[in-house]
Structures are given as structure tokens and as C-alpha cells.
């Protein structure tokens, strides 16, 4: 147990681990949905502390990683226009589009700015009435409410030069797609805590029932993750499949009702392509017709942009838990954070980056599996 002394409360960690060891009688595969959880797991060696029967599979929960190449290309096109100030979160700068990224667009003279909050982009629009200000609105259910509020404010305050390139994704349809795949090995989920802080847990019981899969809402700290694993394994050993909230200090069953109401108003469900995975029905949000004036895809001629994914990057399989990052041939050679082939190597929450960062090249390779697409 080489890492356990680094835990916040090593004694409690040991007790949780002992309990998991005592409970497990056969192999189980659990998927942690969120990239933040993946980093915590790899950094603290949690996967190595667990009994060999419990396998943690990394899920698709990194917004930067799943944003499709096509959307990145649309962003690059818009950001290159002389009249545009293009605002983005910092972690989108180096996500490769076709041939270049936002960082290079700025090098070529594009006005690309990094903001901490979408409201900062709105302020830039107010200060630059003669320019078009476009905000790159990506992310899961945690990021969607801030972006929704910003579009709502733009409309309320009448800021005509502000628009958003929206590519939001939702977790429950991804869980559904993963469980529906014939090559799926996932038997339990550690759901993403902060997504549930917004959305609550109401979307999950139906999924748990339909796929007979336990879903445990889990936080990010090592002890949270151990507790999530412990509860999921208990259910599996007992043949149960319910929704369990192991992150109650930050997740209420109803989530954040004000945020959910704003999401309802500003967005509508749409089919979305996930990078490396393909189109998942109803898995995303776009601006509803009421907010069309602030939709960058209506304002700029990018509708015709269609891009195929590069073949050499296997992030689609990584994101579905079919392949571990270090099993990709390009890992650490052709593909590094400096020369990324896929977003999973760029993003601070990407699984490939987590493996690269914490140097897990020495890990045993799991037996190769036949991968078939999720959808």
C-alpha cells in the first residue's frame, strides 16, 4: 500500500479498503464518469490499492475531450475572423482541430482571449460594441448553467454583439449509450458529483433500473472515491442496483432548482457527436429558438463545416473504457501533451494526460478487447 500515507485520513482509508477487500468475492468493473475523479484515482494510486477483482474504468466525463473535432474547426473558423473577439476557457487553447488550435490562431493574428467566466466575455462585448464577441460554450451540466445565465443576461441587457458557440453535453445519455454497447463491461457507475450538484439525482433511477446497474454519486477526494467504490461493490455483491448518494454534502436530490429552470429556458435537447465516439441521441443542448439571435452558428457561416476524426487517435475507445491510455500505440511517443493527437492528452481532466502526468507506463496491459462503437 505505497500511497496510503498520502491520504487525508490514512486510518479511514485503510478501514474503507479493508471493508472493500472483505466484501469482494468476484470481479467487478466500475466506471468513474468524471475526469476529475480519474485524476484523483491515478494520482493516489487508488486503482492499485483496490483488490484485484475491482477494476476502475475511466469514463467520458471530460468536456474538453468529448467536444467533437467539427466544433473545434467551427471555433477556429470564427476565431480567425477579423471582426471577432473569440473568448474561451483556457483549457480549449491547445485542443487540436484540423491542422491547428486556438493557440495558433492567436499566433496568426486572431483575437482570442481566455476568460475565467462566461460573464467576462459578456463584459468584453459591452466594452467593444463595434466588435463581434463570441464565447465558446462547451461542457457538461456543471458548465451549462453559467453559460445559460450569460446568454439570458445578453438578451435581457440587449447586448447584440454577443453570441455563443454552444456544444454542451449531458451525462445520462452517455451512460445509456455506454450501457447499450455490445462491448460494454461496466457493471456499476461512480456518477460525477458536481454534475449532480446541479441536476440532482432524479435522472438516474430509471437508468439504474433499466440496465440493472448501481449508480453511486461520488465526490473527488480519495476518501470519497473509496467510499463510492465500497457502496457500489456492496450493491453488486448483493445483486442490488439502486441510486445511492455518497456525496450528500454537495448534492441534494433535487440539485439546484434555479439552475435547472434556467437550463430549461435557454437550451433544448439535441443529438450531439462526441469526439471519438459518434453521435449520441439527445445527448446535448443547443440554444432554444428564443435565443437564436445569440447563437454563433446562426451568425457566422460555419454550418457547412464537417470534419472526420483522425484515425490514429484511439480516444473514443479510451472514453468508453475499452482501452487504457497507455495501451494506445501513440501514447507517450507520437502523442504527448506537447504534440497531442487527441483531446484526452490535452485536457487537464483527460485520461491520457492523467496517465502521462503520473508516469504509469509500467502498468500491465489488459487483454486486448474487440471494440465496437457505442452507437
Amino acid at each position, binding site marked *: 500500500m505505497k500511497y496510503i500515507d498520502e491520504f487525508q485520513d490514512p486510518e479511514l482509508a485503510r478501514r474503507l479498503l479493508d471493508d472493500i477487500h472483505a466484501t469482494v468475492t468476484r470481479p467487478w468493473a466500475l466506471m468513474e464518469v468524471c475526469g476529475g475523479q480519474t485524476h484523483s484515482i491515478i494520482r493516489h494510486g487508488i486503482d492499485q490499492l483496490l483488490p484485484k477483482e475491482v477494476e476502475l474504468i475511466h469514463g467520458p466525463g471530460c468536456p474538453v475531450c468529448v467536444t467533437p473535432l467539427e466544433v473545434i474547426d467551427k471555433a477556429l473558423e470564427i476565431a480567425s475572423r477579423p471582426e471577432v473577439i473569440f473568448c474561451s476557457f*483556457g483549457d480549449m487553447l491547445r485542443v487540436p482541430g484540423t491542422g491547428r488550435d486556438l493557440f495558433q490562431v492567436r499566433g496568426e493574428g486572431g483575437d482570442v482571449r481566455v476568460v475565467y467566466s462566461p460573464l467576462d466575455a459578456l463584459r468584453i462585448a459591452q466594452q467593444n460594441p463595434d466588435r463581434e464577441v463570441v464565447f465558446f460554450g462547451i461542457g457538461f451540466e*456543471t458548465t451549462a448553467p453559467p453559460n445559460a445565465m450569460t446568454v439570458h443576461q445578453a438578451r435581457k441587457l440587449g447586448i447584440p454583439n454577443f453570441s455563443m458557440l454552444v456544444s454542451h453535453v449531458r451525462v445520462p445519455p452517455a451512460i445509456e449509450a455506454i450501457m447499450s454497447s455490445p462491448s460494454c463491461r461496466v457493471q456499476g457507475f461512480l456518477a460525477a458529483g*458536481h454534475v449532480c450538484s446541479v441536476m440532482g439525482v432524479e435522472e438516474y433511477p430509471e437508468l439504474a433500473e433499466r440496465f440493472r446497474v448501481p449508480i453511486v454519486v461520488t465526490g473527488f477526494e480519495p476518501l470519497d472515491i473509496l467510499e463510492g467504490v465500497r457502496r457500489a461493490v456492496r450493491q453488486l455483491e448483493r445483486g442490488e442496483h439502486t441510486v445511492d448518494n455518497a456525496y450528500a454534502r454537495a448534492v441534494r436530490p433535487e440539485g439546484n432548482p434555479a439552475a435547472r429552470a434556467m437550463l430549461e429556458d435557454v437550451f433544448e435537447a439535441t443529438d450531439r457527436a462526441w469526439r471519438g465516439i459518434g453521435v449520441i441521441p439527445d445527448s446535448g443542448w443547443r440554444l432554444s429558438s428564443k435565443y437564436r439571435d445569440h447563437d454563433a452558428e446562426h451568425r457566422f457561416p460555419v454550418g457547412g463545416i464537417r470534419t472526420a476524426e483522425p484515425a490514429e487517435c484511439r480516444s473514443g475507445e479510451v472514453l468508453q473504457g475499452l482501452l487504457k491510455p497507455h495501451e494506445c500505440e501513440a501514447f507517450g511517443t507520437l502523442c504527448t501533451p506537447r504534440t497531442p493527437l487527441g483531446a484526452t492528452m490535452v485536457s487537464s481532466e483527460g485520461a491520457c494526460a492523467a496517465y502521462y502526468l503520473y508516469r504509469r507506463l509500467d502498468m500491465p496491459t489488459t487483454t486486448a478487447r474487440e471494440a465496437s462503437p457505442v452507437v
Partner: protein
Amino acid sequence: MCLAVPGRVLDIEDRDGTRMATVDFGGVVKEVCLEYLPDLRVGEYAIVHVGFALQRLDEESARQTLELFAELGMLQEEFGDAWEMAAAEAGVDPVEEVRK
């Protein structure tokens, strides 16, 4: 970017009809919108994501999470200079890049 970070409310004011707060994230101070948690008070902790408070959190949990994120380098990613980090990753001289 998807990670939400706990912070402590330092003060609250109404700005153009929007409830805003200054929030301390273990030393980094940012403007945060409270429209989704309108009854949050000065001194309380909340989970904040891209400038919006999304859910209340108790002090003990907030502190522990902040420590963890600092240790994982995630606070640096959230609040650090994104251009500098991107330049370093791209192998470009960050000082040159920042001057642009």
C-alpha cells in the same frame, strides 16, 4: 474546467440587478455570480464553477477539497495564466508569448 472549486464568500453586492460576490479560493479572489444560490451569506462556502456558485458546502469539506485540488495542481489550471501554460506545453517561450 469541469471541476468546480469550493470558495468562501468575502462580500456580496448587487450589480446591475445581479447578485454578485467576491469569493476567496485558498488565496485567489474572484468575482462570482450568486443568482443560482441567492441566499448564500458572507462567510459561507459554496462550490463555484466558472464564476457561478452552484451549491453550498460546509467549511470542513470545502477546506479538504481545496487542499486536494491544490495538491493535484488543479487550482493552478483553473486560475493560473492559461497562455503561459499553453505556451509551455507547445514548446514556445512563455515570456515571448505573454508579451504578445
